[in-house]
């Protein structure tokens, strides 16, 4: 998101300052405050961010170059890039975790965008009972992820879960779902889709309602059918909004932690079935106290996130033109 904002408001440069000089204030403090209000307003938040975010991040970068483990207070030695070498050559935990993170995000995002677009189109034009549908859309979105994880644990339970009960009615044998080594990741993706498709719907719906009607109208006059109008008119016009939705959702999906930890616990289950980078780094830090290694994982993870965002922002710029 950050990247989206940098260009905003360029046209206003200095307008607030130059347009109307205040009448000479009497008190000198207020004059000083008014003159420096830009930094006076921004500084507290910036200092907070600096102390609580930039400094820890720098520390993480430093830790990733040391052999810190056991306790953060223990003496550490500077070992250069060794942690990165260890991590990058780790094909048992690190690379599978990268794969899971990317497939979790990719599959969840793809489903959420397609479903989200479908639902947004359904809601686009007003109808009776719209209010209730909107409430239904909001509920998963605000539900506490840990509670949601527990809820799905019961529903997907192989023995007593409602899903297997339903499947039984149509003659499909019970599936292991969360407890299966191959099915666990897919099941958590499903949970993510349930909880976050509404978010995509809301963003896309905001985009749809802000579209101008003329292009669609013109295509209609020219005899284009609904599918043609969607794929050749609406979708291209919606592309910037779609990419914003992907960007917003993608960042959070990459960082998914709550439902994975709530449903599978430490290490993403006994076979690390759902161990994504975030779960892996958390485990290294707080279950195994391997601070050096976990910091290296986190720095790499951070670079993956930034890289993905950068790619999407580039794509958005290309699309917006």
């Amino acid at each position: 998101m950050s990247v989206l904002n940098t260009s905003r408001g360029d046209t206003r440069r200095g307008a607030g300052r130059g347009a109307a000089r205040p009448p000479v204030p009497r008190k000198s403090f207020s004059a000083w405050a008014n003159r420096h209000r830009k930094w006076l307003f921004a500084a507290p938040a910036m200092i907070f961010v600096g102390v609580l975010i930039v400094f820890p991040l720098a520390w993480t970068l430093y830790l990733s170059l040391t052999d810190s483990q056991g306790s953060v207070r223990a003496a550490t030695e500077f070992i250069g890039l060794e942690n990165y070498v260890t991590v990058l050559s780790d094909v048992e935990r690190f690379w599978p975790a990268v794969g899971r993170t990317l497939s979790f995000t990719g599959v969840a995002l793809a489903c959420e965008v397609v479903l989200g677009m479908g639902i947004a189109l359904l809601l686009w034009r007003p109808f009776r009972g719209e209010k209730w549908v909107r409430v239904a859309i909001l509920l998963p979105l605000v539900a506490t992820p840990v509670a949601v994880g527990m809820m799905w644990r019961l529903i997907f339970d192989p023995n007593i879960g409602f899903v297997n009960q339903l499947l039984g009615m149509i003659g499909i044998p019970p599936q292991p779902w969360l407890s299966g080594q191959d099915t666990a990741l897919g099941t958590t993706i499903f949970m993510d889709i349930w909880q976050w498709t509404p978010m995509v719907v809301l963003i896309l719906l905001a985009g749809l309602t802000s579209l101008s009607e003329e292009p669609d109208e013109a295509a209609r006059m020219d005899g284009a059918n609904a599918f043609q109008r969607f794929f050749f008119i609406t979708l291209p016009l919606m592309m910037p909004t779609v990419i914003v939705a992907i960007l917003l959702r993608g960042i959070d999906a990459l960082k998914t932690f709550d439902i994975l930890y709530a449903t599978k616990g430490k290490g993403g289950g006994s076979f690390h079935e759902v161990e994504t980078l975030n779960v892996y780094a958390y485990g290294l830090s707080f279950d195994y106290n391997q601070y050096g290694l976990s910091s290296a994982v986190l720095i790499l993870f951070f670079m993956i996130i930034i890289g993905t965002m950068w790619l999407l922002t580039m794509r958005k710029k290309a699309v917006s033109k």
Partner: protein
Amino acid sequence: MTVLTQSQTSAAPQAPAPRRRKPLGTRAYKVFRVVALVAVVLFLIAPLFWMLLASFKTNVDIYDTAKSFIFTPTGENYANVLQRNNYFIFIFNSFWVAFVSTALSLVLGVPAAYAMSRFTMGRSALVVLMARVIPGVSLLVPWYYVFSNLKMVGGFEVLILSHMFVALPLIVYIMMSYFDSLPLELEESAQVDGLTPIGAFRRITLPLSVSGIATAGILSFIFSWNNFMFALVLSGSKTKTLPVAIFDFVSYASIDWGGLMAAATVVTIPIMIIALFTQKYIVSGLTAGATKG
């Protein structure tokens, strides 16, 4: 819908409403739309409904598939959860942390967002908004080290600070797009009329921004209420928040499903009630900045 022809639609009456109120042609589409909408609503609501049902069942009934929908409801799970496990304390903790972190973030974030919007502080905004991208775990190790040296881990202060890490960037982000959309002329004319710039901000801009501030505040409250990871590491036995309390539920040998579902319901119900009453704000906050560049 391919059947939708030009003659049909051009015959449709044009409604004056700002949103499109043209009936969408064919009956087939209408039926499809109703069916699809019902399916969507069922898909979204059914799991929550199931959780609610299970929270009123005894564990024996939960294991009995014949009693999926017909059973004798019991309030025992709730009594257990609320009394024996002292959930009132966790509810208070969650509420207090969310409330204070939201209030403090608003105090810091709203003026900052204003400055960044009016003075086009792109780079500064970028620094604050970076916080939304950083994986929380990477901050937890340094925080834990510093705060445990200061003997603050397990206190409310640390939890509140960590939740502000989520709240502040969110508030800055929402308020920036709100201030961007607020016309500059109002402040300018207030200044012509003799207000100082800060006075204009306080007496003109702030009162006009109440709905934006409500939006940012509600969302930040919800995110803080739902936050799990920070509380998992930084909360102590006295400051445990609800999500961590639920998580602790399953670390025992066998899962008390009824109690777990009651606990999960206790966490989600307050936030859903807030959401029902503030729907408009939540939607506008979540979609802030999504439709413009």
